[in-house]
C-alpha cells in the first residue's frame, strides 16, 4: 500500500514552487521552476519533479492546496486554495513555533507578516503597487549592470564601500546606477548599495517584532541580504532550511490539515 503525501503548490509571479510533505509533517520532496506563461504546465512539471524526489506518484496525493498568484490555475487542485500570506505563516510557524515576524521577498511583491505565540496571524502588509525592494527591482538592476542575477551576492560581498541609492523608484534607481557608473564607482559597491536599498524598503514597511524570519527566492539566492538585514536590525534572523519553499510547504501543511477549503 502506498504512503499518502500532501502537496503544496506555490504558483508565484516569478517562480513556481512545489513541496511534498508526509504525514509526519516533513518535507520529503520539492521543486522550483520559472513560472513562465503557462502556470498549469509549469505546476505539473514541478509536481512530477517533487513527487519523484519524494519517491511518490500522483496516485499517492491524499490532498493538495495551491497558493500564489496562479493559485486558481492548477487543474489538479479542486477548490482548495489559500493565500500566500496564510501559507507563509503556516510554514514558518511550523518551523519556528513562537511569536515571529516573517519578511518575505518575492519576485513581484514583499510581505511582512506578524504571527503571535499561538501561531495566529495578527497582521500583515504587502508592498504598495511598486517594485521597490522586490526581486523585480534586483532583476532590473542586474540588467542595467549587465551582470547575471546569481553573481550579485558574490559581488556585493566584495564591496569595500557602498554606493547608496536615494530613490524609491526602480526607474530613478536605474538612472542613479548609470550616474554612478559614469562617475567611475566600482560595480561591487553599487551592487551593495542595491542590496541595501532592497533591505531598507522592506524594513520601512513595518516594525518587526523580536524574532524575525526571512523567506523567499531573493533571500534564498542572496544570503548577503539576510546578513545586511541582521546588521540593520541588530539581531540574528531566522531562516528556514529552504526559504524559497516556505509558502509551498505551508500549503502542503494546509493540505495535511485539510484546511485548504476556505477561499474562493
Amino acid at each position: 500500500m502506498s504512503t499518502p503525501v500532501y502537496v503544496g503548490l506555490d504558483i508565484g509571479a516569478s517562480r513556481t514552487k512545489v513541496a511534498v510533505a508526509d504525514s509526519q509533517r516533513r518535507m520529503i520532496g520539492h521543486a522550483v521552476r520559472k513560472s513562465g506563461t503557462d502556470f498549469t504546465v509549469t505546476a505539473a512539471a514541478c509536481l512530477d519533479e517533487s513527487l519523484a524526489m519524494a519517491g511518490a506518484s500522483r496516485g499517492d496525493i491524499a490532498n493538495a492546496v495551491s497558493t500564489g498568484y496562479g493559485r486558481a490555475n492548477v487543474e489538479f487542485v479542486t477548490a482548495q486554495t489559500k493565500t500566500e500570506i496564510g501559507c507563509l505563516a503556516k510554514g514558518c510557524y511550523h518551523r519556528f513555533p513562537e511569536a515571529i515576524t516573517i519578511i518575505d521577498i518575492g519576485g513581484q511583491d514583499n510581505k511582512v507578516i506578524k504571527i503571535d505565540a499561538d501561531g495566529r496571524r495578527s497582521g500583515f502588509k504587502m508592498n504598495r503597487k511598486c517594485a521597490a525592494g522586490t526581486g523585480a527591482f534586483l532583476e532590473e538592476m542586474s540588467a542595467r549592470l549587465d551582470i547575471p542575477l546569481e553573481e550579485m551576492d558574490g559581488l556585493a560581498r566584495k564591496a569595500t564601500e557602498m554606493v547608496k541609492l536615494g530613490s524609491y523608484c526602480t526607474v530613478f534607481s536605474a538612472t542613479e546606477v548609470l550616474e554612478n557608473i559614469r562617475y567611475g564607482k566600482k560595480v561591487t559597491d553599487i551592487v551593495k548599495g542595491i542590496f541595501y536599498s532592497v533591505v531598507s524598503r522592506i524594513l520601512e514597511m513595518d516594525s518587526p517584532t523580536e524574532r524575525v524570519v526571512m523567506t523567499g527566492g531573493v533571500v534564498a539566492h542572496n544570503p548577503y541580504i539576510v546578513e545586511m538585514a541582521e546588521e540593520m536590525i541588530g539581531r540574528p534572523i531566522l531562516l528556514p532550511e529552504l526559504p524559497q519553499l516556505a509558502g509551498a510547504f505551508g500549503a502542503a501543511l494546509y493540505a495535511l490539515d485539510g484546511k485548504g477549503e476556505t477561499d474562493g
Partner: protein
Amino acid sequence: MAEEKKTTRKKIQATDLMNKIMADYFYDLNDAATTGKRKVAWCTSVGPAELLRALGFAVHFPENHAAMLGATRMSTDMIPAANAIGYSPDICSYLTADIGAFIKGVTPLSKAYKGIESVPKPDVLVFNTNQCRDVQDWLAWYSRRLNVPSIGVSSPKNVKDVTDAHIDDVARQIEALVPALEKISGARLDMERLRETVSLSRECTELWKKVLETATAVPAPLTFFDGTIHMGPAVVMRGTQTAIDYYKVLLAELEQRVRDGDGAVEGESTRIYWEGMPIWGRLRQHSELFSQLRANVIASTYCSSWIFPSFDGRDPFRSMAKAYLELFIVRSDEYKEGYIKGMLEKFRIDGIVYHDAKTCPYNSNSRYGMPQRLETETGVPSLVISGDLNDLRCVSDEQMKTNVEAFIEQIAEGR
C-alpha cells in the same frame, strides 16, 4: 482548477425608483440649462446647496458627476487630458476626470439619459473647502474656462471640537454669498423657503442615517457597495421632498429584510468597516470579492458622511455652518478615531479596510498612524489597501484580491 463560488449581493427593489428620480433630477437640470428657465449653480458636495435651492437654482454637483465617470470606468481615459494641461496625476482624480471629460466633450449623462448632450452649463460655481482645497481649484478651472463666477466658503481643517468661533466664521461666509447669488438668480432670498429647505435636508439625512443603521442587524440587509449607489439622492437632492419620499421607500424595504433575517450577503460571517473612498470603477468586483468570502462591508465613513444631524430650519445659516463643519473630513484624527470606535461597536465590526487613495490624501486616513492606534485600542484588525477613487492606473486588482482574501483568512483564524 479551483472554481470561484459566485455570490452576488441581493438586488434592492427600490433601485428602480431611485433610478427614476435620479433621471428626473438630471433631466430637470438639463432643462434648466438648455432653456434658461432657471439658473444653474454648480456646488461642491457639502457646499451650501440649501441656500442655492432656496434661491431657485437647479444644482449640479461636480463630485457626483466625477463619481459617475469613475463608476462607468470612463475616468481613466479622461484623466490624461487634464494631466496634459498641467493638472498632475497626483491631485484629485475626481477633478482630473471631470475636467478631462469636459475637455474631451464627453459625459456619462449622455450615455445614461437620452437627449442630454453635456453637463449643465453653470451660471455660478459655489465651493466649500471643507472637503479639500482641490474643490476650489476644480471650480476655478471652470470659472476661467466658462467665464462664470466662482464663490464660496473657506473652512478650517483638523478641527477637534466645532466651536462657536468656527460656526460664526462659516455662517458669516455663507451669509456673505447671498447678495452675489441673489444678483445671479434674479430673486431675493426668501427666509421661509430657506428654513423649509434646511428642514427638508435634515429630514433627508435622518432617513439616510436610518437606512445605513439597518446594517447594525445581523445579517446586514445592505452593503457598503449598495450604499455608495443609494446615497445618490442624499447627495444631489438634499433639501427636496423627493429625496425624503425615496428614503422612506428604501427604509421600509430594508427594515422588512431585517425582520425576515434576509442578509445582503449569503451566510454573512465577517463584518467589515470601509474607511476611505470607494474605488468607483471596481464596485461590482469588490462587492463580489467580499461576498464570495462571506464577508459583508456593512458600514463606512464615506456613506455616513451624508448624515447632518445639526441642520435646523429655525436657525438656517448657523445650522448649515455647523452641519458642514461637523463633517468627518473636517475633523482631527482624535475626533475621527473616537468616531470610528463608535462605529465599530455599533455595527459589531470584525475588521477595518482602509483605502489609501493615491490622489485623495484627505480621505486616506491611514497615513498618520491611525490604523495602528485603533488596532491597539480596540483589538479590531485592519488592512490598508492601495488604490484610487477614479484613476484605475493606481489600482492593482491582484494585490487587492490577495490582500482581502488574506485579511478575511486572518480574521477567521483569529476567532
